[in-house]
């Protein structure tokens, strides 16, 4: 009894302290009165200040995604839009679908959707269309008919896969075998990259095995460990194609433990995040295919055009390239993600 009387207030205070100290510093939400577009005279013309944009983010599985989220939040703040309805679906499609439904209920102006997987979007996209809310598909693609959404903006995943294949063709002119660590099964990124990779890979290079690491470090480690026990690095396979940098970082840990040295294997990854650049500087990656996450400005610009009834391109591809270790060191400090 005695202890409980002492303990209760202590615990309550401690809990409060934890909660308070954990709360992020209040962000300056009051938007600066910057109206970058039309003066108020043009009543029909809408500005960023009228915009409510819904962005049901698919999760926070990698550095790439973190940068993508940050790009949207920062852009929303600098443009001073009315409201950014942001949610985190924790990589589950059902969460994302219900987030989109909630946005439709809320009657937002535009929905920007980064789909976690390609399939199964027809129903909810039809609901949005019936509610006259335009949808911009961001980053990964969907398999739904193009009439159901206004535009797709993002990277050409197939092209990324083809670029990675071209790197292996260059590095392994005499053929060989590679392993593939692929992304979330069924996601547009994993499907596209796998397809492009197989399209362009020289026939004398064999894909020895392919397994998903779900785009996360934690899952890539045991998968790579199992690969390394099953096949002998250097003799059974000479290269690894990894669908994103985070899995690459996980795989490097497994490779280190197996005694593989940087440069022993040809590794090509996708994303171009800081972690990937660091891996190139350290000599692990021989090439990193860029996939740009900083899509915020482009999406908001497109959303404004949609609100004002202007026509937009149904397919916008971001400008991307391939990075190599020779430039990695000087480019690393300039990377934004």
């Amino acid at each position, binding site marked *: 009894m005695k*202890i*409980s009387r002492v*303990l*209760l207030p202590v*615990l309550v205070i*401690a*809990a409060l302290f*934890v*909660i308070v100290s*954990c*709360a*992020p510093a209040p*962000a300056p939400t009051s938007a600066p009165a910057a109206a970058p577009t039309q003066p108020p005279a043009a009543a029909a013309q809408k500005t960023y200040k009228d915009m409510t944009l819904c962005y049901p983010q698919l*999760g*926070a*599985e*990698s*550095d790439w*995604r*973190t*940068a993508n*989220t*940050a*790009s949207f*939040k*920062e852009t929303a703040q600098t443009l001073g839009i009315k409201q950014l309805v942001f949610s*985190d679906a*924790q*990589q589950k499609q059902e969460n994302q679908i219900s987030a989109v439904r909630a946005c439709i209920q809320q009657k937002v102006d535009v929905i920007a959707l980064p789909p976690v997987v390609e399939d199964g979007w027809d129903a909810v996209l039809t609901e949005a269309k019936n509610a006259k809310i335009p949808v911009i598909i961001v980053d990964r693609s969907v398999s739904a008919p193009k009439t159901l959404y206004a535009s797709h903006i993002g990277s050409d995943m197939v092209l990324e896969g083809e670029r990675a294949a071209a790197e292996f063709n260059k590095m392994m002119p005499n053929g060989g075998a590679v392993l593939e660590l692929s992304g979330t*099964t069924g996601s547009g990124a994993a499907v596209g990259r796998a397809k492009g990779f197989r399209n362009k890979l020289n026939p004398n290079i064999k894909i020895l*095995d392919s*397994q*998903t*690491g*779900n785009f*996360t*470090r*934690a*899952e890539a*480690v*045991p*998968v790579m*460990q*199992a690969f390394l*026990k*099953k096949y002998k690095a250097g003799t059974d396979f000479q290269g690894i194609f990894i669908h994103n940098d985070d899995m690459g*970082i*996980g795989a490097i*840990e497994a490779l*280190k*433990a*197996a*005694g593989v040295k940087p440069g022993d294997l040809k590794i090509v990854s996708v994303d171009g995040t*800081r*972690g990937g650049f660091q891996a190139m500087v350290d000599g692990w990656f021989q090439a990193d295919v860029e996939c740009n996450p900083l899509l915020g400005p482009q999406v908001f610009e497109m959303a404004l055009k949609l609100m004002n009834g202007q026509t937009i391109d149904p397919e916008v591809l971001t400008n991307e390239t391939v990075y190599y270790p020779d430039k990695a060191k000087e480019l*690393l*400090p300039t990377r*934004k*993600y």
Partner: protein
Amino acid sequence: MKNYPLLNRIRESRLFLPLGALAVILIFDAIYAPGFFNIAIQGDHLYGNLIDVVNNGAPLMLVAIGMTLVIATGGVDLSVGAVIAISAAMGAVLINPALGNQLITNEILTRDATNTPLPIIILADLAAGTLCGLWNGFLVSRARIQPMVATLILMVAGRGIAQLITNGQIMTIYYTPYFWFGNGYIFGLPVSVYIVAIVFILAWILVRKTSIGLFIESVGINSKSSYYSGIDEKNVKLLAYAFCGFCAAIAGLILSSYVHSADGNNNGLNYELDAILAVVMGGTLMTGGRFSLFASVIGAVVIWTFTLTVYTLGVPANALLAAKAVLVMVVILLYSDYFRRFLNRFSEHKGPEHGRAN
């Protein structure tokens, strides 16, 4: 019973079933994946599937040790996964105070830099976990909330707290000394193995060399009669939950060090279920009472041996959960009274069925 005393002793041992399950999986490996047992020396450390089992399984073993004590008091702690996430987030945020909603600036990338000295990071991690455990213990022992409900609160809230700490984003850790816990080696064995050994010995001394173990079992069997016999039943429970939180915090430290990042959503995901499974496999009953720490650790080893076996065989990750379900089903069936009776009849022929009260 007199016919086969040795056989009976082995069969009645708490370790019989977990070791049996482990043996079955290892025999399976020996047949289908002969390379599974290869251990080589790679640079300064041992290398092989079995090393991966203990290294990857270390966090689960730790959580299972803590969970054993909680389950032995007749409770359960569903919040261990969330506590792992909190501990990982604490570590990451103390090393690198950049909040996730800003694009990372360059000076933060400066390698090997930390904002807080490593010992303080470790202490803060452990304190956070122990505090979470105390909170659970307080709700269960003082506020008298059912353990499943009480810890459910932190299971849900904990991930939220972890996300608050990291601002809902993955925080990457660039501070290399921190990686030692998950990726370092001492005398050829992973550091995490030594951590598990230390915690195990601590827990073992606590429960077997003092009367606390007896108190825990007594509280688990009947907390009211323990109270009337003068056992401080409330503080026994409080201790069990606090220790469980402490173990989960160490697990969080190792896990975040292992993958170089803290992720509020995914660090320690489903660990509560795996830990309960490990404890149940170790023969501790969910209703509380007698327990075996070592058997729970073996249970955790079984789970990871199984996971790595599945990867080695090349079963896709999507099928892993289904395969795990089969393992769970088999184990639960092995523990059923029906199977026990079958085993008794099998080994004793005509002998009388002795009612083992478990």
